[in-house]
């Protein structure tokens, strides 16, 4: 099987990898690059646990081929904290107990960051609809929505 050579930027760093044509970006991140923060919950784009941004656009990594990111820029949960400084969303998720098992958390954080970059002052409804592609079975969403609203306010105040 011929593997494809792909050069991309991942979390700001130049990265090269080899992948099979049918490998998804999620397979590549998890299996080839050991970036296992993006989770596989369904492999059909229905749960959002593998949310990443591709050229700043929020996508499910399970619905992107690894080969497609040639020349593009990918951001994953692993790139969200800067050094030992957590992103305000990460901080608020912790303070609000916006996670129980935590498996959906990376996807929610990546998706919420994409929301706040598009809409810095979202309403509760905006947050709920934007995050509708991220399933959480533990929290009932309440604390997640509160954490996102509060992080938005933190970021606006900066």
């Amino acid at each position: 099987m011929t593997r494809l050579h792909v050069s991309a930027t991942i979390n700001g760093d130049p990265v090269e990898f080899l992948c099979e044509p049918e490998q998804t970006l999620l397979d590549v991140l998890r299996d080839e690059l050991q970036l296992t923060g993006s989770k596989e919950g369904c492999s059909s784009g229905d749960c959002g646990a593998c949310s990443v941004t591709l050229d700043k656009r929020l996508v499910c990594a399970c619905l992107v081929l690894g080969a497609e990111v040639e020349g593009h820029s990918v951001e994953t949960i692993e790139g969200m904290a800067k050094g030992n400084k957590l992103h305000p969303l990460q901080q608020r998720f912790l303070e609000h107990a916006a996670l129980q098992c935590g498996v959906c958390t990376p996807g929610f954080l990546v998706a919420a960051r994409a929301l706040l970059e598009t809409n810095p002052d979202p309403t509760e409804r905006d947050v709920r609809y934007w995050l509708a592609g991220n399933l959480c079975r533990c929290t009932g969403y309440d604390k997640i929505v509160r954490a996102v609203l509060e992080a938005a306010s933190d970021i606006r105040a900066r």
Partner: protein
Amino acid sequence: MRYEVPESLEEAVALLSRAGSGACVLAGGTDLLVQLRSEAIAPDLIVDIKAIAEVRQIVFTGGCFRIGAAVSGAELGEHPTLRKAWPGVVEATELIGSTQIQGRATLGGNLCNASPAADSAVALVAAGAVASVVGPDGHREVPAEDVGVGPGQTSLEKGEIVVSLTLPARPRYSGDAYLRFTPRTEMDIAVVGAGVNVTLDEAGRCAEARVALGAVAERILLAREAADALVGTSLDAAALERLSATASAACRPIDDKRGTRAFRLSVAGVLARRAAKTALERARGPR
């Protein structure tokens, strides 16, 4: 499996024509990758068309919007003037899947996946959109309602690609709307979809109308009788009731995991009426 990224339409058509039956076009990939992963398909070749300029642009020319087949839902929603002219088409596209899916899913893909429940495709049919198709034998134009002919079945010939979709020039006092019914607010497939597109005359009467229905037959329906129920009326309550009845009558739905036949028959009429009301308000414009 091979993966190719042609940079021109000619190259893409040549790749697809040369390939056996196991060649697939990759645009947003939101359907294709699911099929790949579930082993529903095992193509020998995937042709990623996103490096081709024509399929990635939205062009406004001669009063018409020409939307590249690989423009994503999110890009469509961000276009400065498209939403004003065709809010129904844009909103329908925005209903497809999650924010994540919006980042990838394309108009062309939604149409060519040929699901009778495809939200944007129903709105395109109501809008009277025309698909621009290129293939080994050159270029042809296909009305949106003639692209999908059955579940997963298109009228495209081997090697053909939908390049763009053209929305017709918009007369004054026009408006469109698309509504769908899903049990969840998001992340769902339409159990019923209804798109309505109307143009009013100076007196505020309906001069032209198109009504399209999704998920109520093996393909998207262009419901002419339902449109006729509106033309010549002021979209008053009686006309809307006729619309509702004719829309329901046009359906030939089945019972399936997403809904019952009885439910679809009933709700198709309800949604057509509700969509018509919104289309009417939009056609009248701000007071």
